[in-house]
C-alpha cells in the first residue's frame, strides 16, 4: 500500500501547487459539463414540462422513449455522435471531432433524457390539489402553468443537479469524442483512466479527490433541494 500513500501525498502536492495538467483537466471537465447542462436545460426543461403537463396522442410513447434513453450507454452515444461528426460524417465539415464542442454535443444528449423524463415526472407527481387550488383562486391557464412550475422549482433544481452529476462523471463520451488530448479535451475521468493504466497514481488520485469533492457538493445540493421540496 506504500504506492497508494505516496500517490496520495503527490496528489495533494499537485493540487496545492496548481499543477497545469491537473487543472487543465478540471477546467475542461467543468467547461464541457456546464455547457452541456445549460443546453440540455434550455431544451429539456420546456420539453419535460410539456410532456408532463399536457395530454396529446402519443404522449405515453414519447414518455417511454425518453425513459428508455435514461439507460443509454455513454459509449453508444459516443459512437453515434462520432459517426455524425467524424471527418467523413454529415457534420464532418465543422471539425468537431476531438474538440470540446464535440464532447458537449455528446454530453448534451446524455443529459437531455434525464432532464426531460424527470421534469415530466415532477409535473405528473405534483399533488392534484395544487391545480384545483389555483383554479379555485381564479388562476387563468397561463397562471396555472407558471405557478405549477413555481411549485416544482425545487424538484427542477434536483433534476439539474442529477444531470450535472451524471455528465461530470461520465467517461465514454469524453473519451470517444474528445480523444483525451492533453491540455485540450482531457477531462478528469479520462485522465484518471489514462494515468491509472500508466501506473501513475498521483494525478489520478488528485483528480479523484476533486471528483469526490464535486460529488459531495452535488449530493449536498440534492439534499437541500429535497428538503426544500418537502417543506
Amino acid at each position, binding site marked *: 500500500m506504500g504506492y497508494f500513500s505516496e500517490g496520495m501525498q503527490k496528489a495533494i502536492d499537485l493540487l496545492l501547487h496548481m499543477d497545469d495538467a491537473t487543472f487543465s483537466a478540471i477546467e475542461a471537465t467543468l467547461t464541457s459539463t456546464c455547457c452541456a447542462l445549460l443546453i440540455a436545460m434550455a431544451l429539456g426543461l420546456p420539453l419535460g414540462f410539456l410532456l408532463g403537463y399536457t395530454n396529446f396522442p402519443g404522449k405515453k410513447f414519447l414518455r417511454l422513449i425518453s425513459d428508455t434513453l435514461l439507460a443509454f450507454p455513454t459509449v453508444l452515444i459516443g459512437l453515434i455522435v462520432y459517426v455524425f461528426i467524424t471527418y467523413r460524417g454529415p457534420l464532418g465539415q465543422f471539425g468537431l471531432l476531438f474538440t470540446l464542442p464535440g464532447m458537449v454535443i455528446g454530453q448534451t444528449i446524455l443529459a437531455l433524457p434525464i432532464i426531460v423524463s424527470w421534469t415530466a415526472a415532477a409535473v405528473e407527481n405534483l*399533488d392534484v*390539489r*395544487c391545480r*384545483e*387550488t*389555483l*383554479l*379555485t*383562486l*381564479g*388562476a*387563468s391557464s397561463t*397562471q396555472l402553468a407558471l*405557478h405549477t412550475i*413555481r*411549485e416544482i422549482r*425545487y424538484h427542477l433544481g434536483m433534476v439539474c443537479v442529477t444531470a450535472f452529476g451524471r455528465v461530470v462523471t461520465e467517461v465514454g463520451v469524453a473519451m470517444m469524442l474528445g480523444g483525451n488530448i492533453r491540455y485540450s479535451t482531457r477531462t478528469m475521468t479520462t485522465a484518471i483512466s489514462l494515468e491509472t493504466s500508466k501506473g501513475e497514481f498521483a494525478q489520478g488520485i488528485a483528480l479523484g479527490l476533486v471528483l469526490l469533492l464535486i460529488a459531495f457538493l452535488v449530493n449536498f445540493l440534492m439534499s437541500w433541494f429535497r428538503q*426544500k*421540496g*418537502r*417543506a
Partner: protein
Amino acid sequence: MNTLFEARDLRKRYGDITALYLPFFSMEKGETVVLTGRNGSGKSTLLRLLAFLEKPSSGTLRYAGNQNDPRKEITLLLQDPYLMKASVFWNVTLGLRLRGFGRERQKQGYRESMLAVGFADPDGMASRGPGELSGGERQRIALASRLILSPSVLLLDEPTSNVDAASEKAILNVVRSLREKGVSVVCATHDRGIPEALDAREVSVVNEGC
C-alpha cells in the same frame, strides 16, 4: 326570483361510475345551504360542479352570476386544503396576486382575512411555511386565502373535519359573519350538528345513480 344556482337532472360520471345524480337542486342568493349525506353520496362532486372546476356529464346547471368567468366570484375550500410551498403571507395573498392587486392591497387584505379566521397576530404568522402549521391552522389559512377575495359564493368541503374545537369555532363564526354580509355559502359536511349551528337549510345528497 333571486335564484343563484338551479340544477336539474345533474349527473356526473367518471368512466362507468356515476359519482352524482341529483334530480333537482336550487339555492337563493345570500342563502347558506348545508349538504349532508353518506360517503360517496356525491357532496364533494356537487361542490366541484358548483365551483365550475368540472362540467356535468348531463343535465343542466344554471348560475345567475358572471357567466363569462364564474370562478372570479365563486371559490371552493377543499376538504384537505393544499398550501403552496411558500410562506403563509404568500399563500393567503395568492388569489389577489393572480388578480393583479398590488402589495398594499395584499398587506391590507392579509391582515383583515387572517384576523377574520381567528389569528390574533397575522404578522407573526406571515413568514411561516406550510410545514410549520397544524391541521387547524392550515385549514384556517386556506379559508383566509378565500376570504381575501371577497367571493359572492363560498363553497366549503368538510371545513370542520380534522380540526380542533377552537379552529371549528373560528370557521363557523366566519361562515355566520359571511351570511350577514350576504355571501352565499354551500357547506358539505358529515357533522349532523353543523346545519343547526349555522341555522342553515339542510340538503341531503343521495346519489340516486348508484
